[in-house]
């Protein structure tokens, strides 16, 4: 209650540096987990056409559901790390966009965990791509969009390194 109230205030920040220091931050890990979550959704949606036994079906659903949730949660976690530890408000417009995208990834990641709709996974990938664009822009690195050469063959933002 008190924390919620005070957190709304614009307080100065004390950095508990997450710095070995490695300084290695890369938004591609957010996309990796988003795409992996989408892949798990596709696998789950295709299971009923595989002619599995009841036991085999149940087992496969359990495995892929667990993996889907793990991938979505890792996507959220890596977003929080980049958003919280790396992103700095050098550009207010980009920072506002970053806040909005990070929050969007939290919501989309949870939606992927809660149910089984391909559009939820697609939304997570789209947000991860937009987040990656803001990330690379903050580093002054150009990006382009390519299609993954593996299922789910979706579009991802890649830095031109």
């Amino acid at each position: 209650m008190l924390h919620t109230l005070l957190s709304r205030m614009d307080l100065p920040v004390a950095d508990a540096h997450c710095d070995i220091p490695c300084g290695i931050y890369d938004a591609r890990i957010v996309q990796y987990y988003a795409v992996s979550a989408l892949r798990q959704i596709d696998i789950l949606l295709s299971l009923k056409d595989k002619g599995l036994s009841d036991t085999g079906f149940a087992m496969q659903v359990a495995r892929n559901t667990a993996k889907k949730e793990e991938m979505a949660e890792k996507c959220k976690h890596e977003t929080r790390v980049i958003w919280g530890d790396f992103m700095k408000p050098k550009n207010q417009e980009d920072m506002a966009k970053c806040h909005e995208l990070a929050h969007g990834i939290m919501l989309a990641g949870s939606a992927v965990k809660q149910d089984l709709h391909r559009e939820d996974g697609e939304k997570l990938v789209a947000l991860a791509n937009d987040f990656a664009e803001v990330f690379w822009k903050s580093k002054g690195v150009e990006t382009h969009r390519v299609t993954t050469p593996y299922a789910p063959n979706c579009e991802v933002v890649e830095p031109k390194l």
Partner: protein
Amino acid sequence: MIRLFRVRGRSMLPTLRPGDLLVLRRRQPRTDDLVVVGHPRLGTVVKRLGADGRLVGDGVESSSTHELGKLSNAALIGVAVLVITPSGLRRPKALASRRSGNRA
């Protein structure tokens, strides 16, 4: 004077989590106190005051003590007397099995 700071980063885990709020008092710091300092290179940081006035992090990901240096090289902003977390208030406690020395 009391001041409030928001914690960012994970180097003080498990003592402090990102987003925790620190209530600071301006007083003479003692060994094992959580201090917020203006570090000449790292900016405003929260660390624990180790033996011999060295600044150390509680988490495995923290900067090395060698890199952080001593409190005398940084400007003390305040000593944490209370931590406000989403689950309530608590006093900053010392870690039972805190490491010491370099942790690069």
